[in-house]
């Protein structure tokens, strides 16, 4: 399956072509080249997926790892070297499908959405760069290759968030996104260093091959601050994942990242890049499970807290993209929790499967939600919910597809979100009641805020639109991707995921417990939707009253629990004022001052003794005679 290289090579070539020659092309041609290239990429990815899942992938009862390509790129030591290669296994192939599908949809959609924007070709070049990096990330054969592409997706995300570079808020958001994730990547890097120091390899296969060794010998490093070295290494690697996947408290960059063009938010900040952290943990899952189970526990709790935290914030936000951003944080946290509560092997590994399943379904319906939001923004030229309402009349396709996505994310059967979410809840139920009930509440909140959003945008006819600026349905390049993604959102839930993906690569069977967890999750979702319906379907004063009643709590959620302010304080006051500014002063006055001082002393001492070199012969003669006498006296008397 060497041709799978095409999946990576195509977007890279597209990036080079569009990046170097794009300026000379007509914008529309650049867009079409990008889209065609991406279609090719998607076709190859689907072929690979078909061949893997139905022809070559299964050997006996087990899914194998196929490495069609691997070469040494940079050698550090005999055992440690960065390889670049392609690893095909169930999760990477699944990711290939997700990324190419969503990316292609976004490419098509952008032909309509970004039409007439300045820098159209630059936009497509960066989209290609992103697709290249993201695809390279998921097929990585070793952890360092993953790190390389991890950084590259970070930069593509940076460039795309800051696409409108003349807008100060976009520049600030892109900077924030990069620096926060960079900070997390520091943890990732140090984690890699520690891990590779003890295991002497970067390679995923070697890392995860020997479970017994993972548990015992490979981490003979002792303990540090009461935790084993393995725990430290894996926790630091998780920190990298938490940064990219916007886990609390490193989530602050994601809502701001909505400054980028909306299709970019759909692709990068909803469907693909932000799940890289989940993918990372899934990729190293055996290492986590056997070498550092306490980190998994931590991941579960961090995830559960983030899910709740983000869902609460999402309720009060009024910018539709921010609601979706917090919803994304909350849903990714769901996937993290699923990994955290998962066991290893067969049905114990339900959480692992559920996490990947939710990643898969979420990618489609969340991309759909973002693209739908983009379509709305395109129509009313605003992100604010207050400027919308009653749009169902004007944009039927957007409204219906958005509705489908809302049902999917809320977890109403038979839409895809229900199935994956139900598995996660089931996994949590067997593991930890606190986490289960937290997730259950979050499921209700999700249904509530999603339908609040839906009703406020498309119903709730409080807003009058002037005759000249009547909103209208978006053009075909934008609605077609919406329809395709809606189809995905409806049907992907029926895929028997556990046949393909499991923690130990051996298929197992799952069933839905319609009387237990299933009923609970549908129940809470319906309640959420009903409340939203009562409050927001028609214009009413009820929400405002409730907000007033909640007082401080409402204000706190509206301000995202002041996390931005706290981080601002850390960077501005602690780093700038308490570290950098004193260092600058110290450098100027103490370090440099001592050098200047040395020069000053030299100058002063030389000017005070320069009088001796007066050039007067009488004076020299006098000193000469006097000196001779002194020396003679010394010689005589000592």
């Amino acid at each position, binding site marked *: 399956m060497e041709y799978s290289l095409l999946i990576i090579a195509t977007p890279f070539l597209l990036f080079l072509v569009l990046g170097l020659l794009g300026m000379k092309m007509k914008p529309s041609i650049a867009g079409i080249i990008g889209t065609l290239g991406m279609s090719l990429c998607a076709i190859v990815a689907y072929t690979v997926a078909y061949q893997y899942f139905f022809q070559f992938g299964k050997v006996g009862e087990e899914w194998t790892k196929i490495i069609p390509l691997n070469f040494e790129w940079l*050698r550090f030591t005999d055992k440690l070297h960065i390889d670049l290669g392609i690893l095909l296994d169930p999760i990477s192939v699944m990711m290939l499908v997700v990324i190419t599908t969503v990316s292609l949809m976004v490419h098509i959609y952008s032909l309509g959405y970004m039409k007439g924007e300045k820098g159209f070709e630059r936009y497509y070049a960066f989209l290609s760069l992103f697709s290249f990096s993201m695809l390279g990330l998921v097929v990585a054969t070793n952890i360092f290759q993953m790190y390389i*592409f991890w950084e590259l997706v970070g930069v593509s995300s940076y460039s795309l968030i800051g696409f409108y570079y003349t807008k100060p808020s976009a520049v600030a958001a892109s900077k924030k996104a990069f620096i926060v994730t960079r900070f997390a990547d520091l943890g990732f890097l140090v984690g890699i260093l520690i891990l590779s120091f003890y295991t002497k390899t970067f390679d995923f296969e070697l890392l995860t091959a020997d479970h017994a060794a993972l548990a015992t010998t490979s981490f003979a490093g002792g303990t540090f601050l009461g935790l084993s070295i393995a725990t430290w290494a894996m926790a630091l690697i998780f920190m990298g994942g938490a940064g990219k996947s916007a886990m609390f408290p490193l989530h602050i960059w994601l809502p701001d990242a909505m400054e980028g063009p909306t299709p970019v938010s759909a692709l990068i900040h909803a469907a693909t890049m932000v799940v890289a952290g989940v993918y990372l943990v899934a990729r190293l899952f055996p290492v986590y499970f056997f070498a550092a189970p306490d980190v998994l526990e931590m991941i579960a709790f961090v995830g559960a807290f983030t899910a709740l935290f983000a869902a609460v914030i999402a309720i009060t936000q009024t910018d539709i993209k921010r609601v979706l951003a917090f919803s994304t944080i909350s849903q990714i946290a769901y996937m993290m929790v699923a990994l955290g509560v998962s066991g290893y092997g067969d049905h114990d590994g339900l959480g692992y499967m559920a996490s990947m399943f939710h990643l898969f379904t979420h990618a489609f319906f969340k991309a759909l939600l973002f693209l739908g939001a983009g379509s709305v923004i395109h129509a009313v030229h605003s992100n604010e919910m207050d400027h919308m309402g009653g749009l169902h009349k004007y944009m039927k396709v957007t409204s219906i597809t958005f509705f489908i996505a809302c049902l999917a994310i809320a977890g109403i059967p038979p839409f895809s979100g229900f199935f994956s979410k139900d598995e996660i809840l089931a996994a949590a139920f067997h593991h930890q009641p606190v986490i289960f009930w937290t997730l259950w509440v979050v499921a209700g909140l999700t249904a509530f805020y999603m339908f609040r959003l839906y009703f406020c945008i498309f119903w709730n006819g409080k807003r009058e639109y002037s005759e000249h600026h009547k909103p209208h349905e978006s053009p075909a390049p934008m609605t077609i991707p919406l329809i395709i993604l809606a189809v995905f959102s409806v049907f992907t839930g029926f895929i028997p995921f556990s046949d393909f993906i499991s923690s130990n690569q051996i298929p197992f069977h799952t069933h839905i417990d319609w009387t237990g967890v299933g009923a609970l999750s549908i129940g809470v979702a319906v309640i959420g939707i009903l409340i939203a319906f009562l409050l927001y379907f028609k214009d009413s004063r009820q929400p405002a009253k409730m907000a007033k009643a909640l007082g401080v709590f409402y204000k706190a959620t509206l301000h995202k629990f002041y996390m931005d302010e706290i981080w601002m304080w850390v960077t501005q006051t602690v780093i700038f004022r308490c570290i950098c500014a004193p*260092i600058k002063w110290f450098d100027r006055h103490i370090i440099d001052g001592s050098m200047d001082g040395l020069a000053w002393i030299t100058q002063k001492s030389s000017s005070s003794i320069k009088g001796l070199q007066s050039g007067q012969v009488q004076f020299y003669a006098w000193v000469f005679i006097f000196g001779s006498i002194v020396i003679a006296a010394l010689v005589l008397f000592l």
Partner: protein
Amino acid sequence: MNILSLFVVVPVLMIIALFLCKGMKAIRTVMVTGASVLLVLAAILTILFLQQRAAGDTAEMLFVDSLVWYAPLNICYTVGVDGISVMMLALSAIIVFTGVFSSWNMNMAKEYFLWYCLLSMGVFGFFISIDLFTMFMFYEVALIPMYLLIGLWGTGRKEYSAMKLTLMLMGGSAFLMIGIIGIYFAAGHTTMNLLEIAQLHIPYEFQRWLFPATFLGFGVLGALFPFHTWSPDGHASAPTAVSMLHAGVLMKLGGYGCFRVAIYLMPEAAQQLGWIFLILTGISVVYGAFSAVVQTDLKYINAYSSVSHCGLVLFAILMMNQTAMTGAIMQMLSHGLMTALFFALIGLIYGRTHTRDIREMGGLMKIMPFASVCYVIAGLASLGLPGLSGFVAEMTIFVGSFQHTDWFHRGFTIAACCSIVITAVYILRTVGKILYGPVQDQHHIGLPDAAWYEKVSVVCLIVAIAFIGMYPSGASDIISNSLSPIIAKLNF
């Protein structure tokens, strides 16, 4: 004639040709031709070197040639190169070449280029010599022209900066002189030849004093904390090409010297006393990065960034293992190219906006798209984006350093890793401030983008950076193979 000597002869010929030149056009022709010849020479040398190695020549230094110069002390003009010097020569040739294009419109061009050629000669001479005395002589030849180049063609407080830079580096040279003479006598054999001294054993009582002296002497040029303050002032006042050459090549003399003289000849002392300097370099790495965060002058930001990056070079050298040292040399290459690119672009921007204060600029991306995109690339290289040279160098250093067996070194490696975050902060702050956002100063609207000669300079550097970044094993293998015998010696 030995191919290596050509590296010294060509600049001398250029100087002679410059004397005969009349008019700007002739001067430019001479410079471009000479610099191109040097570039081609470097390429030929690399190929020849690889061929000889492939043919199985395992001598430590190739193309060795010797000429007695002062018989009573047995001082020779001895030249020879291994993979590391070949790489350094290639780096110098690239930077000298691009520097010519970046100083296209200089006043008093003839005099300027005279000193420029002399400086280049010193640099090349330094990298090819394996005789301590000759090496030291070329080192001084490279330093002195700097005083005049900054003092006469500089901007701002140029006399002060030139004086400060020269005096501090001369102070370093004094230590170096002591070190070299000490090595000569302590080795107990009348030879200045590095390879011969390396075969002899310098007693530890001497090494204990000579190692710090030489390391410090070269370290000053490598911007070792706390002797780095010449660098911000010096760079800020220097004209564009001089900054490029200085940060790109001259600072590498420091790292190269520390490696070639201090550590290679006195491994025991390096093992015993390395920790003192490791702390200093560790401070350099983090301290330089933090200092850069609050600077407002583009050149100061870069100078402090150089302190941080060059600190990493010395840091890795002190780790004394093959991977980290390979990383150190890679970092020299990478930093040389990247910082030259930065200074070329800063010169370009300064030449148009007449300010280097980041608070007075904004939205340049709209005004000079070419220069701005290149600046972003330079920034990304500096903050270690994979695919550009900074990443491979830094990762080799970090992975190599972390292989050290004791906790002290590994702890310091983690501390040094922190610099990657701080680097991102100051790079993105600068880029965000000057290139993005609304146009700050209405007078900047309509300023021309890069001229063709500036483009030549910038594109060459970017190509080199991307080449190393995408195909690191080329450079890394050459370096790593040349290090093997040295490492074998270090670990006795």
